[in-house]
């Protein structure tokens, strides 16, 4: 009998094949889709619980053809990007400030740490009172949630730059702006990017909630609207869109990591 752990076993050789490796990750999702389709078709799964994949695809198609889906995707993407830019930008700026200057840390850090412990979503009633159900309310929520991961990781990144490298750079005549851009900032990049990736994930979570409260457009509005008319297929399209956009944002962040940290052994592509 062939031993499965043996590197020469047929199963292992099969799995090592390049084309097989490309197909393998898709096997399970396809299997799930097939089971789902079959159980819907046989009536075992009610369409009110979950519409068949085919119906979701059709809904997606009709929304695309009518052009409706694009306005929603564009609106949501714009909100996510704007909220992320505002919150992330402020987080980066303040993180750099408190990380670099001790007095700024003393002044701001403890207050920020206190606010950090308030879940952004707990502020929804207040946000509605302040901004109404306007666009700014959604941006505020996203920006607030995104702010802290980036702030914390920037602060931590600046503080944990290797002191030996700073000492070396100073003794080689670097100071001020040159020291900051050539040593401190690059040294903090890895940590800052961790914050960025974490924040990107948060952006969509916050946006979903913000858009389902009240909106005239956006993916969240589309799904809430569909719920009223019991269009489970459109609800599912919305959920899948969120997943897709989230994945895209993560890919973007990963790409940034691969570029900015290409010097880092932990981020270099493994050559096979």
């Amino acid at each position, binding site marked *: 009998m062939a031993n499965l752990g043996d590197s020469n076993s047929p199963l292992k050789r099969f799995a090592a094949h390049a084309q097989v490796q490309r197909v393998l990750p898709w096997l399970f999702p396809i299997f799930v889709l097939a089971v789902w389709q079959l159980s819907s078709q046989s009536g075992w799964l009610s369409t009110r619980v979950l519409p068949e994949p085919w119906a979701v695809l059709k809904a997606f198609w009709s929304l695309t053809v009518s052009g409706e889906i694009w306005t929603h995707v564009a609106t949501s993407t714009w909100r996510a990007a704007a909220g992320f830019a505002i919150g992330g930008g402020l987080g980066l700026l303040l993180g750099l400030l408190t990380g670099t200057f001790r007095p700024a840390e003393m002044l701001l850090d403890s207050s920020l740490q206190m606010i950090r412990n308030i879940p952004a979503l707990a502020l929804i009633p207040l946000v509605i009172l302040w901004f109404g159900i306007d666009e700014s309310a959604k941006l505020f929520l996203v920006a607030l949630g995104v702010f802290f991961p980036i702030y914390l990781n920037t602060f931590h990144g600046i503080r944990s730059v290797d002191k*030996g*490298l700073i*000492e*070396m*750079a100073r*003794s*080689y*005549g*670097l100071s001020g702006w040159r020291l900051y851009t*050539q*040593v401190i900032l*690059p*040294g903090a*990049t890895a940590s800052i990017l961790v914050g960025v990736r974490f924040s990107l994930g948060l952006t969509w979570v916050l946006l979903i909630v913000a858009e389902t409260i009240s909106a005239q457009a956006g993916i969240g509005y589309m799904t809430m609207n569909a719920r009223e008319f019991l269009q489970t297929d459109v609800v599912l399209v919305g959920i899948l869109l969120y997943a897709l956009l989230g994945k895209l944002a993560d890919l973007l962040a990963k790409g940034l990591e691969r570029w900015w940290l*290409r*010097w*880092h*052994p932990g981020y*270099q592509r493994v050559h096979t």
Partner: protein
Amino acid sequence: MKRHDIEIRGASVEVTGVSKGYAGRRVLLDADLQIAPGEFIAIVGRSGCGKSTLLRLLAGLEPADAGTILLDGDAHAAHQSDIRIMFQDARLLPWKRVLDNVALGLTGPDVKERAREALAQVGLADRAKEWPAVLSGGQRQRVALARALVHTPRLLLLDEPLGALDALTRIEMHRLIERLWLRHGFTALLVTHDVSEAVALGDRVVQIEDHRIALDERVLLPRPRHRGQAFAAYEERILDRVLQQPEGVSVPPDDALEYHPAHAVRWAI
């Protein structure tokens, strides 16, 4: 390899009555040291004796509590650009390619050219575009050496730069450092815990003990130095001196150490 045919452009160093302590703990006390231009000084001593501290004071990384350090008769703080230090760890910036690491802190139009030249001098011209992460320990120290030399320092401080390297790489590095020192004529100060390294490289071997300079011995061997009998004699004499128990440290009785001489154990192995 003779020295007199090149111009000596190293700085003279004069350390007078220098003391340094950290949080009440005395590290250096009233240390005096004179170094002639272009001389190669090797400083040995037990760990924690203050030899690295002396180097850090000379590099201007820390201020001395008392005493003066003069470079060519001037306060050494005014000569920061003439002093370069090589650390125990190479301290290359991992996010800069090898060439850009060598060019760190350089200004002027021909920065890349000068850096490339310095890299060629340490034999790494073909690695200019690599990230430091892919280099071996010895190669990293060679890059660090190039980075120091590209500034044409008049005083080069070496803080146990070869401590973490294997024996063969170390001997290679000794030859490289000696060759570049002969060629550029800078004053060199090497801190090491390896007496053989000190004898191989130093014009003078200085020992720090009890926070003071305790031994200052001139090594009268022709360069490049071969590990012959005369070499071994120097090495043994200095090692014996270093291994003498400093005052104030109580030696536990022999039986408390559970010490087994090698010849008593050998039959059991």
